Structure formats: C-alpha cells, structure tokens
C-alpha cells in the first residue's frame, strides 16, 4: 500500500534532490567552519568548548549523509540521521524564537545568496526544515539500506 503511494521513482527523485542539497549545504559549512561555529554559539544552548566539535560534526554529517543519499548507500540510515538533525535544528530554532533571540539560523547560505531567502531564525526557516523532514520521511521509511555496488542475492 505504502509502496503504491510512494513509487520507487519518487523515492529516487527525493533521494537525489535532498542528497544534492545536503552535499552543498554541508560543503559550504565545512568551507567556513569558524563562521558556522559562531552561529551555533549564538543559539546559546551548547557550552563554548563543545562548539568547534559540534560544528564539525554537523557539517560532516550533512556532507556524508547527503553523499550517501545521492549514491543510494544506506539511504534509509542516512535519511534517518538527517531527520534527527532536522528535529534538532527545528527544536533549537523554536527555543531561540521563544527566547526572543535574533540571529542567522546557519541553515543554507547558498539559498539566501541565490534566491534571497531569509536566513534569520523565525517562521520561514522553521517551516523549511519541517518541509525537509516531511520529504525525508518516505526515504527513512521505505528507502533501501543496500550497498549499490553489491549485487542482491537471489
């Protein structure tokens, strides 16, 4: 039933689009880790000594999971990891909005540069991350966990 609702072609399309998106997002964060770390510091949730490690972990995670999604390597696992990260980002943003803090969300700089989308924490990036979570769900639930270069046993 679920397979009928989400044909494999749709899951493949979602996987490729989201994979490419997370590769770009992770790559741009890795290019300027200090900047990303300073934005994480603005959230005022983590202790200072953890920030460099967390900024590296988040950007590496985005880049690796994006690549894994793109080449269909453990897609189910990688989309689940990204889903968890999205939930963390959404919770952190809601927390900061409720505390009345104003700063960049540190989400996707290239979107704001190319399309002028707002990067400041608020309703727009929260809704955007919720949308990404919804798009990740079908892959996490129905995607494959295979290794593409290994042939399936009959």
């Amino acid at each position, binding site marked *: 039933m679920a397979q009928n609702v989400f044909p494999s072609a749709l899951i493949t399309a979602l996987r490729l689009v989201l994979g490419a998106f997370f590769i770009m997002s992770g790559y741009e964060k890795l290019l300027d880790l200090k*900047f990303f770390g*300073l934005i994480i*510091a*603005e959230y005022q949730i983590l202790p*200072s000594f953890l920030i460099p490690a967390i900024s590296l972990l988040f950007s590496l995670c985005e880049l690796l999971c994006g690549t894994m999604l793109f080449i269909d390597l453990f897609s189910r696992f990688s989309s689940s990891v990204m889903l968890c990260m999205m939930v963390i980002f959404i919770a952190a943003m809601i927390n900061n909005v409720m505390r009345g803090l104003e700063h*960049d969300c540190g989400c996707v700089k290239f979107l704001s540069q190319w399309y002028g989308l707002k990067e400041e924490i608020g309703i727009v990036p929260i809704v955007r991350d919720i949308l990404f979570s919804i798009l990740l769900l079908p892959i996490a639930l129905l995607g494959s966990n295979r290794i593409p270069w290994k042939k399936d046993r009959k």
Partner: protein
Amino acid sequence: MSGKPLPRKLFATLFVISLSSISPSLSQLHAAETVALVKEVSAELDLAATKALFDSHSACFVDARSEYVYYKSHIKGAISLSKSRFDEQFPDFRQKHAIETFIVVYCTEDSCGKARNVARKLMKNGYKNVRVFSGGLIEWAHAGFPMEG
C-alpha cells in the same frame, strides 16, 4: 489706480515663495542642531569625531553586533563584544583592557540599539570612558574608512 498694487502684490508673492523655500532648510538646520545637542548630551560620537579617535589610536573600538557578523566585517582593529554573548566575552575583554580605556562602541546603524546596550553594560562594569558611535558600521563603510574581516 489698479496698476500700482500689482508690483506690490508680485513682490509680496515672491517674498512668500522665497520664505517658504528657505524655511525647510531653516528647519533642517534647527533639527540638525537639536540632533547634535542630543548626541552631545547622551555622549554619542559622530563620524568625524570617531574617525579622529581612530586616527589617533587613543580609543578601543568595540563591535556590539553578533560575533558571526563581526567575523565577516568590522572596523579595522575593533574587538567583538556582542550584546547577545556579552557575559561570555566580557571576562576576556576585562583582562585585556584597563578600566580607564577610552572605548567607542558601535553596531550596524543609528537605529540598532546594541551599541547603546553594550555601552550601558560596560559602564555598569566600571568603564567610565565609554562613547557610542551612533552612525555605526554602515556610515563608516559609506565613508570608505578602514575595515577588515
């Protein structure tokens, strides 16, 4: 009889027109004086005074915006002491700068209240010579003065 009042009327009309064209500039002048007075009272610095302090190397420049914005661009030689993370950054600042240091605080522009907020916090922590550069980074950058980041 009817020919004589015409030049008078014309003169009167011209006088009124010229007066009305002068009055806005007069009111602007008056407004500028008031702004200058307000700034003097609240010890805020204008661009010229800030640049003079910058050139004389007699003041420490403090950037009150968020650290990640400071990281991208700031007044040359300025130190980050953001409103949002003041409590975390202040101990380090206190160690490096004596209480008598002349401090110029700025943020993005006149309407951003971060500089005034940080200035108030600095004064609460014992710093007496604190001034706010109200024009902020936008005015500084427009003037083409030294920046880095």
